[in-house]
């Protein structure tokens, strides 16, 4: 014998988005489905490859405004970027003007990272040879955490954490294109530079120490003052612990798919 009830059966909706992706959408106010799906897939990819827990800050630069571009996907309440000067914000990400524009991540490498356990990655969409650095900070010659993908004489340089080549600095000469996904990965006795998942330079030297000033994007911090303004179009940036070689490939694959989904891959 059956019975009647006035309870409405509960039909659960499938969880469309990861909880951290949802937090990002709430913070930024982004409603565009292409962007939401790209962010969600990025989060899922980073979590399934164990990269998520290694990344301290991740700026996806989506939404096209100074507001949406300030948020850190890993934790939207921390390390929001403070923007200064002439930065163009659009669907391609952020582009400094090479004279006054930059962002302060409010991320201090000396307190948030550990020595010989660091990695920078950026995704650059234009080919510019200039004196501008895209990300980093330094206190002098031996407290550095900076990267440029292409100087006026066609050198890419990762300085973690010194100006001495092979002793905390890794250079690659004959660079003809600043575009692509750049990974600068530093651990004890290993400094690796990858462009689009290809190892272009490496050395085994150590030296220097982590700087004590916040990391800037679109320029670098020289003891708290912006310098070396970049005019490159930055469409993604991370600062993380050092990565395994498998991590490096996984990060490239996740970022590449992310940019393809957004239609801004180079």
């Amino acid at each position: 014998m059956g019975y009647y009830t006035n309870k409405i059966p509960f039909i659960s909706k499938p969880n469309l988005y990861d909880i951290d992706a949802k937090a990002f959408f709430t913070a930024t106010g982004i409603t565009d489905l292409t962007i939401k799906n790209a962010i969600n897939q990025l989060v899922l990819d980073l979590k399934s490859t164990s990269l998520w827990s290694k990344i301290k800050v991740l700026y996806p630069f989506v939404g096209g405004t100074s507001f949406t571009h300030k948020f850190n996907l890993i934790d939207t309440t921390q390390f929001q970027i403070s923007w200064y000067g002439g930065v163009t914000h659009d669907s391609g990400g952020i582009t400094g003007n090479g004279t006054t524009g930059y962002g302060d991540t409010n991320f201090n490498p000396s307190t948030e990272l550990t020595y010989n356990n660091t990695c920078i990655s950026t995704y650059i969409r234009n080919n510019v040879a200039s004196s501008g650095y895209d990300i980093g900070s330094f206190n002098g010659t031996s407290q550095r955490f900076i990267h440029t993908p292409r100087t006026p004489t066609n050198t890419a340089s990762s300085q973690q954490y010194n100006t001495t080549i092979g002793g905390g600095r890794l250079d690659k000469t004959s660079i003809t294109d600043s575009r692509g996904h750049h990974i600068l990965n530093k651990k004890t006795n290993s400094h690796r530079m990858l462009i689009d998942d290809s190892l272009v330079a490496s050395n085994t030297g150590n030296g220097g120490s982590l700087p004590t000033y916040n990391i800037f994007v679109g320029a670098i911090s020289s003891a708290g003052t912006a310098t070396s303004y970049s005019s490159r179009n930055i469409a993604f940036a991370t600062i993380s612990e050092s990565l395994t070689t498998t991590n490096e490939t996984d990060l490239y694959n996740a970022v590449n798919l992310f940019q393809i989904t957004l239609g801004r891959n180079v």
Partner: protein
Amino acid sequence: MIEVHLLTEEQKDFLKDIYIDDNTKFNPVFNNGNWIISQEEVTQYNGELEWVKELPLIEYIIEEFDLL
């Protein structure tokens, strides 16, 4: 040639605390003996300071170097 807007010392001190939009502050920079802001900052500024839109233009002197 890059052109930028010339500031007086007083204008520089005033603008460094002013927002261009809700999330971006002006960034007066010292270049070749002058305080300047970029044309992008003036274009993006949506505030009420009319004099910002009337600042004179001068040439920006690029300081090229290879590596720091």
